[in-house]
């Protein structure tokens, strides 16, 4: 039986870290993820974990210390947000390409400028090609659950994992949550036993080679395979987690999609708002649904094609803009997933929404569905690159 508690998303993640008891944490304060290393360093200073905490002088060094520690044979973790994640970017690529399963908690926040501390996904989306597995949470419960699954997934395929939640919206809001007993968590997560590591006295190891063109592409293809393999691992671990907790996870969550004629695709906490809007619209007899992406990396291309193949129209919601005069990243990848699967009937539009903490209300989501109605009625898609809740 789980333990019922009331925790903020940050506290829930810090508590998950405590239960796992990793070897090293290197972290640097930044709003809104600051509380995670704060809570955790209290566990360290009170002797409640074995972890060594490195209070580094920057996010860049936070990820650098994690790379050193993980390569050394330790479980290494960090937490960050926004420009902190940007500042780590170069190191994120090194962590992934060196095949180091570091776990990074991200509280998503807007990027400057203007400087803004509130939620959107520009930070996480900006590092989407760094080679990390990226899981997104809708609720505090999911942030906690995703964190408990992250190491199992990352260590199985040799890739680092970002466990993303929405800054302030879940990181600071206190919600009811069901925690698992620590001994169960420890058993579920298991010990980290890398095959090769720097501190193996019987086998010196060299990490971080200079790769000439004769090798570089083979290394990258192998890295790509790890991400492909991660899809099944995420499903398997999510199923096993469900057996333990009753909460099963896959790459996406389909909400009222079985007979849906119109759908919204999005990531993160806005799924809660979308679900409420869909419930209300369903009461009016409308066939609407939601596809919530949990795993953005690996991208759930097959699941999205399957979920959307029978809808008449869909809107992909991006809490980030690619500023390509075309669309946001999730719309681009969703469209590519459909095209690759030979699905061209559904008409799709893209909404850029929620930037810098702009509220997304039930009515906002209803407005999106009203636009999908028009597309279905007229057969005309119109402008595909749209902004939601912006003053005209």
């Amino acid at each position: 039986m789980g333990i019922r508690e009331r925790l903020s998303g940050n506290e829930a993640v810090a508590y998950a870290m405590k239960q796992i008891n990793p070897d090293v944490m290197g972290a640097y304060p930044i709003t809104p993820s600051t509380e995670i290393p704060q809570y955790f360093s209290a566990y360290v200073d009170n002797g409640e974990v074995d972890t060594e905490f490195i209070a580094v002088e920057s996010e860049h060094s936070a990820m650098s210390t994690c790379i050193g520690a993980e390569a050394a044979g330790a479980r290494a973790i960090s937490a960050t947000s926004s420009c902190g994640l940007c500042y780590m970017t170069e190191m994120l690529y090194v962590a992934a390409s060196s095949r180091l399963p570091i776990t990074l908690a991200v509280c998503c926040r807007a990027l400057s400028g203007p400087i803004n501390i509130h939620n959107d996904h520009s930070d996480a989306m900006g590092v989407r090609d760094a080679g990390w597995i990226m899981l997104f949470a809708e609720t505090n419960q999911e942030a906690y659950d995703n964190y408990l699954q992250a190491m199992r997934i990352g260590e199985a395929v040799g890739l680092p994992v970002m466990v993303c939640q929405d800054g302030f919206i879940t990181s600071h809001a206190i919600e009811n949550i069901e925690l698992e007993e620590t001994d169960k968590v420890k058993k579920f997560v298991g010990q980290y036993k890398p095959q090769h590591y720097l501190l193996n006295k019987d086998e010196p190891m060299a990490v971080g080679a200079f790769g000439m063109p004769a090798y570089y592409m083979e290394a990258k293809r192998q890295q790509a395979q790890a991400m492909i393999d991660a899809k099944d691992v995420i499903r398997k671990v999510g199923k096993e987690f469900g057996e333990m907790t009753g909460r099963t996870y896959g790459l996406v969550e389909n909400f009222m999609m079985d007979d849906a004629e119109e759908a919204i695709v999005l990531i993160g906490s806005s799924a809660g708002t979308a679900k409420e809007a869909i419930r209300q619209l369903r009461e009016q007899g409308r066939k609407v649904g939601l596809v919530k992406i949990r795993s953005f990396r690996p991208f759930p291309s097959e699941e999205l094609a399957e979920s959307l193949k029978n809808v008449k129209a869909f809107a992909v919601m991006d809490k980030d803009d690619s500023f390509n005069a075309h669309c946001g990243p999730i719309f681009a990848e969703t469209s590519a997933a459909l095209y690759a699967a030979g699905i061209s009937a559904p008409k799709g539009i893209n909404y850029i929404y929620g930037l810098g903490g702009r509220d997304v209300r039930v009515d906002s989501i209803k407005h999106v569905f009203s636009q999908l109605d028009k597309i279905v009625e007229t057969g005309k898609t119109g402008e595909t690159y749209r902004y939601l809740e912006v003053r005209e």
Partner: protein
Amino acid sequence: MSYSLKENVMKEDRFAAGHRMCAGCGSPIAVRTVLRALEPEDHAVVCSATSCLEVSTFMYPYTAWKDSFIHNAFENAAATISGVETAYRSLKKQGKLDASYKFVAFGGDGGTYDIGFQSLSGAMERGHDMVYVCYDNEAYMNTGIQRSSSTPHFADTTTTPVGKVIPGKPQQKKNLTKIMVAHNIPYVAQTTFIGNFKDITEKAHKAFYTPGAAFLNVMAPCPRGWRYPSEKLMEITKAAVETCVWPLYEVVEGKYTLNYEPKKKLPVEEYLRPQGRFAHMFKPGNEWMIEEVQKEVDRNWEELLKLCNL
């Protein structure tokens, strides 16, 4: 323990041949010497910043490092090795590890004085049990001899070319050794290759075996960038020391000690003249440059003597 060159060079090198550093490069000499100062029974993890050294010593699949080695990026060797050292403390504390390890990072002056400065300062301030070794060749040699904050005054580099208006690097060299002393770490030393290698070997040994963070600044000439014939390396380092351009000193728990005082301090020309990067300073009309450098060297030397209570 008295120093013996014979015992030193009889020790097996922990740095392997087959690396691709240029003929006559100073940095592999620094690396092999520093690593030989480790006790043979101790394991080590070595880190290198991106640099000539890194790309020449771990071109896949050929590593010149006999110990475990990690390269991460240009600007974070200190943070990276501090992560390895922390993992060691954590695993050791948990009883998951029994071997004894030492930790060392190597960076060039670009990776140390400039882009890696923040990472280095952070790691030193946190006091990890590690040694950071700067092999100082006074410019970005890997990318083709661009100036760094370690490049000396008036030096001709590819980003401070001797032009009609600006005659080489306008600024003086940054005194990184003193900045490291200001971190209040237990051991800081400045050294280079002299005679029987006693100075550098003893300093490397102290750096490794003093608990806590240690910093070694090793002048490691680059024949290509400094433009002198490769065989003259030991003449260049000797001139650097005899002119007091690069004094040999160490700072133990904040206490300065001068390790070598020239019997007769030589004029800076003796150091500058053999190097092509300073050739323009010897053209008629440019005597002021040499005078200026002499003044700077004198000032730094006098300051150092005071710090050493001499």
